């Protein structure tokens, strides 16, 4: 049994704190513009959404086009709780987060239970249908604001607070997902993706694992929805169209499926990109679309893939020779760098 406190984990924690400190400092001193400050919070909930969808698409290998549903359920549940109770901010925030997550998880559990028979594209379309169904269902519930939306959720006292809270939640989620994917369950899930029939024959209950992954994923997506609600203070059914699900799916695919780091990087880049392309605002979606097509072609062109693989190998070799030089006088301790 390895101890949790080892050099690798301490470095990781230090990096996480350093990132937070730098961004918080930039925000406090006002170097970051207001829109960039908001962007940091936006990035946080998008990272959570992407990570949670990656569990389904990347690790489990099922295509879901209705992720916005869990996001909406969580957002509305947490938002309604915040709106209809009168607690101080921090308890409200924590409870809303949990309630949003749990309600979304229940919905995710029920949905995944009902669609176990479906495969591939049919699963994709039924998740899409669930997403749109839940969205139009919300429209007719008067307690949730109907088509006008849920208005007046308590907001963060400042953007720094908002960012810090969201950041902590994201870190916890990343740790949880990392541990899940490296556990026995996580390995079973990736095995289902690679060969479901083989997995079944060694006695793993595929249905149970699928339901488990959908439930965890929708729990995280629900919490992301709560963060979104606190950030925007209003929730509208039109925030949760299937376009959002697709946007998140694009992030998962571009980040590389089944990769936590990839999901984080892809969501940061894709959320930040439109903001950075403000100057070319008319063309930014066009650029995005072309980049998307180009990227997919690049990925499926065998010549280019081979070329990038060679490039990657060269970089790896370079890295290895550099680290070998750096640690040549002392034998490597513990962690072997990938």
């Amino acid at each position, binding site marked *: 049994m390895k101890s949790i406190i080892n050099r690798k984990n301490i470095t990781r924690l230090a990096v996480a704190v350093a990132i937070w400190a730098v961004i918080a400092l930039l925000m406090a001193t006002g170097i970051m513009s207001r829109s960039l400050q908001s962007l940091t919070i936006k990035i946080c909930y998008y990272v959570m959404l992407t990570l949670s969808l990656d569990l389904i*698409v990347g690790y489990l290998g099922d*295509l879901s086009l209705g992720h916005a549903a869990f996001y909406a359920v969580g957002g509305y549940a947490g938002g309604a709780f915040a709106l209809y109770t009168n607690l101080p901010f921090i308890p409200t925030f924590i409870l809303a987060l949990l309630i949003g997550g749990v309600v979304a998880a229940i919905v995710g559990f029920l949905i995944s239970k*009902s*669609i176990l*028979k*479906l*495969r*591939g*594209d*049919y699963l*994709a*379309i*039924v998740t*899409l*249908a*669930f997403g*749109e*169904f839940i*969205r*139009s*269902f919300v*429209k*007719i519930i*008067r307690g949730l604001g*109907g*088509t006008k939306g849920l208005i007046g959720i308590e907001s963060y006292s400042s953007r720094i607070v908002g960012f810090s809270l969201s950041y902590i939640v994201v870190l916890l989620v990343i740790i949880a997902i990392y541990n899940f994917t490296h556990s026995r369950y996580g390995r079973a899930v990736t095995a289902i993706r690679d060969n479901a*029939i083989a997995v079944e024959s060694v006695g793993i209950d595929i249905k149970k694992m699928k339901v488990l992954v959908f439930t965890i994923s929708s729990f995280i997506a629900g919490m992301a929805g709560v963060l979104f609600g606190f950030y925007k203070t209003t929730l509208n059914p039109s925030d949760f169209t*299937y376009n959002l699900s*697709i946007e998140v*799916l*694009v992030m998962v*695919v571009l980040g590389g*499926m089944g990769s936590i780091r990839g999901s984080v990087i892809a969501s940061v880049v894709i959320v930040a990109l439109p903001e950075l392309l403000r100057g070319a605002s*008319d*063309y930014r*979606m*066009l650029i*995005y*679309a*072309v980049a*998307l*097509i180009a990227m*997919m*072609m690049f*990925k*499926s*062109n065998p010549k280019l893939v081979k070329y990038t693989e060679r490039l990657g190998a060269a970089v790896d070799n370079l890295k290895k020779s550099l680290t070998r030089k750096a640690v040549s006088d002392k034998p490597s301790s513990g962690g072997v760098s990938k």
Partner: protein
Amino acid sequence: MQMLISTIIDGLNLGSVYALVALGYSMVYGIAKMLNFAHGDVIMVGIYAIFVCLQMSSLPVWITAIVCVAVCALLGFTVEKLAYKPLRDSTPLSVLITAIGVSYLLQNVALLIFKSDRKFLQKFIDLGSVSIGDIEIPKISFVIWGTTLVIMIGLDIFIKNTKMGRAMLAVSEDKGAAQLMGVNVNSTISLTFVIGSALAGVAAILYAAKYKNVDPYTGSVFGIKAFAAAVFGGIGSIPGALIGGFTLGLIEALTIGFLPDTLTAASDGVAYALLIIMLILKPSGLLGKKKIEKV
């Protein structure tokens, strides 16, 4: 009673257009095994083509219609050649994302050229209406139903009785075996895209004639519902697309017409709920073929 009948007529109109679009989705899925997310946007381009024709001069309606179908077919052909063909052997997810990219691309090109405001096509085909007893039926409805039926029957005959049509069936059944039998798989897939897109063009004409408006997102909203119709009927099946389209169109018209005002916002929800129930009961749609997974 009067209201019920006029609602049903509305539903049949909507259903006809859904059915045509669903057919396009269905054919492409059956053969290329891909969800062509850009299919709805082809309709949008077709309606804009009509809009441009109307703006330019007083072209006769039939020329406008031909232009619309030609533009759509050409667009389908080009998109298939440039974007989908290079990805033929890659994972379904890459193809799906590419299709989404194409959809974004078409929407944003339309957005740049025509701006985001809704354009109206008031001048396009105005036939007036006939009244049977108390009920007034717009003449265009007969045109819509007739066109849909003729196309469906024509397509069925084409697929079952011509060499190219049978090649399409063969490719959708087993790509590898079809190739071994001397079927040119690549050109068959291209042909399917062209036919599917031409159907989208016909749908664009009917849509323009009935609803007379368009914005860059018309196609994607309409397309996703037609897609649901295709899946409802069993994707890959022509009668399935017809049944799915009409079912969805009728349900949408009836829920909008008869639900109390507070609930009409959920009219889309009813259609989607039906789709969910159908797929839970019959995992491959109403007339879809069940596929058994083998080791």
